[in-house]
């Protein structure tokens, strides 16, 4: 398969749309945890009881086409190869837990992959909507629509007092986890993250540096999500997260501006060194790749590099994960082989730009 074809198959259609503030917020995700009222939760249920949950969904939901998300496809974990599941994990459509631990796991996927409903993960259902850019309100609206659509057909576990009942007490109430993936290189370079992270935590939000060590997260990617699910309305939870994200966007933009004004040469040097390494390296670890991809993306967003598309960071962060590298290679790879493949895939991808 050519690289171009591979990429177009590998990248979820929802990722190709550029959402608002997509230069800083790579993606928005809204997840609702739901359970049926009768059968035990997956942790306490038998394989047979969980199969019945899948059958119920298959009968009641798959046969109906949803007006926004179209037809949903049901995939059972037991029917899939190990690397196929891994690829779904790397696309963030299923969790590793569903892939490897569930006694009878399945997922319902929409064609554009912006909607996935995990079945028999920690809860009977995990409704997840993924959108590009900063679209938390839209994400919540779509997730709510799917929730209502399902609730017409099946009985959810709900009480007035505790709300939606979930297996883990950290999800009870709304069952809502809203999150954004943010690229914040200028705040990291200007050493402001150390100050910002604790403040965000105090607001009841969780920050996770991805591929990195806290304020020096490699790839400069941060996932920010709500922690509290009980006692607040869905709208308030999303609004609180949104206002923090908006402030972070402003601060990141201001930091980029000041970098351009005060240390343009150093920033240019950093960006083009990374561009050079990505263009010519023969072997590269994922941590190193993440850092250089972040720098190149920053260069694109700051107008320093103009012949490479901005989507390259999102795309290559996913494509250079082990599952995708193996799928592209058509075989299982050792970590050393992966590093080699990763470097060559990035080189080829950059050549496509010219």
């Amino acid at each position, binding site marked *: 398969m050519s690289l171009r074809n591979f990429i177009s198959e590998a990248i979820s259609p929802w990722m190709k749309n550029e959402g608002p503030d997509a230069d800083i917020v790579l993606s928005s995700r809204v997840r609702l945890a739901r359970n049926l009222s009768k059968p035990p939760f997956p942790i306490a249920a038998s394989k047979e009881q969980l199969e019945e949950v899948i059958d119920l969904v298959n009968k009641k939901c798959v046969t109906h086409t949803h007006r926004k998300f179209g037809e949903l496809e049901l995939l059972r974990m037991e029917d899939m190869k190990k690397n196929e599941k891994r690829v779904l994990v790397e696309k963030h459509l299923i969790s*590793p837990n569903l892939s*490897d631990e569930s006694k009878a796991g399945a997922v319902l996927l929409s064609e554009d992959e912006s909607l996935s409903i995990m079945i028999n993960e920690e809860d009977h259902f995990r409704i997840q909507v993924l959108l590009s850019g900063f679209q938390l309100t839209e994400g919540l609206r779509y997730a709510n629509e799917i929730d209502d659509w399902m609730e017409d057909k099946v009985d959810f576990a709900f*009480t007035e007092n505790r709300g939606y009942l979930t297996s883990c*007490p950290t999800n*009870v109430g709304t069952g809502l986890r809203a999150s954004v993936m943010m690229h914040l290189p200028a705040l990291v370079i200007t050493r402001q993250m150390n100050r910002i992270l604790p403040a965000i935590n105090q607001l009841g939000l969780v920050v996770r*540096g991805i591929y990195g060590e806290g304020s020096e997260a490699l790839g400069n990617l941060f996932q920010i999500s709500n922690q509290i699910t009980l*006692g607040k309305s869905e709208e308030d939870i999303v609004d609180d997260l949104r206002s923090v994200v908006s402030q972070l966007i402003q601060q990141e933009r201001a930091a980029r501006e000041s970098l351009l004004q005060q240390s343009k040469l150093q920033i240019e040097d950093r960006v083009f060194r990374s561009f050079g390494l990505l263009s010519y390296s023969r072997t590269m670890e994922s941590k190193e790749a993440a850092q250089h991809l972040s720098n190149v993306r920053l260069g694109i967003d700051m107008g320093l590099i103009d012949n490479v598309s901005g989507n390259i960071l999102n795309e290559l962060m996913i494509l250079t994960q082990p599952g995708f590298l193996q799928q592209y290679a058509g075989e299982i790879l050792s970590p050393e082989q992966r590093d080699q493949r990763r470097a060559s895939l990035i080189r080829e991808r950059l050549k496509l730009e010219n």
Partner: protein
Amino acid sequence: MLCQECQQRQATLHFTKIINGEKTEFHICDTCAKDKGEYIPGSNSFSIHQLLSGLLDVDQPISSSGSGFMKPRAELRCESCGMTYRQFAEIGRFGCSNCYKTFNEKLDPIFRRIHSGNSVHGGKVPRRIGKDLHVHKEIERLKQQMQEFINSEEFEQAAKIRDKIRSLEKSLNDKKEG
């Protein structure tokens, strides 16, 4: 860098979690990441569960020596799924929706610690079940009212309310069958 879990394989996942202001770094290999169910991103975090089991107060077992006359307290056990409160405290997960009823008296402090002082739902009410809930509540209220009329021997009023209750109950049953 070697994996911090097994100290054998090369660490391939590196990340930091900050939970309630506490920063923890992780450097683990693929195999251990899978064992832990830990991955990036969007996975369940085992550290939340560790945190949680620290929050749940497990009743100390009553020692067999010493107070020989004390009967050990019967343990809370969910009739639907069989989960005991001790098991819940250990794994940090409920086994079914009925566990919430069974362990109810113990849940308020746990929820308050996890959810910044909140223990009561303040969000969405599902349309269909929500309507039924409303009807059930209304039936409860009417039953009380009916009892009051019966107590004060106003049987005509009580009969009127009984009819109202019947028609509400009928509407619930019709919906189930329909």
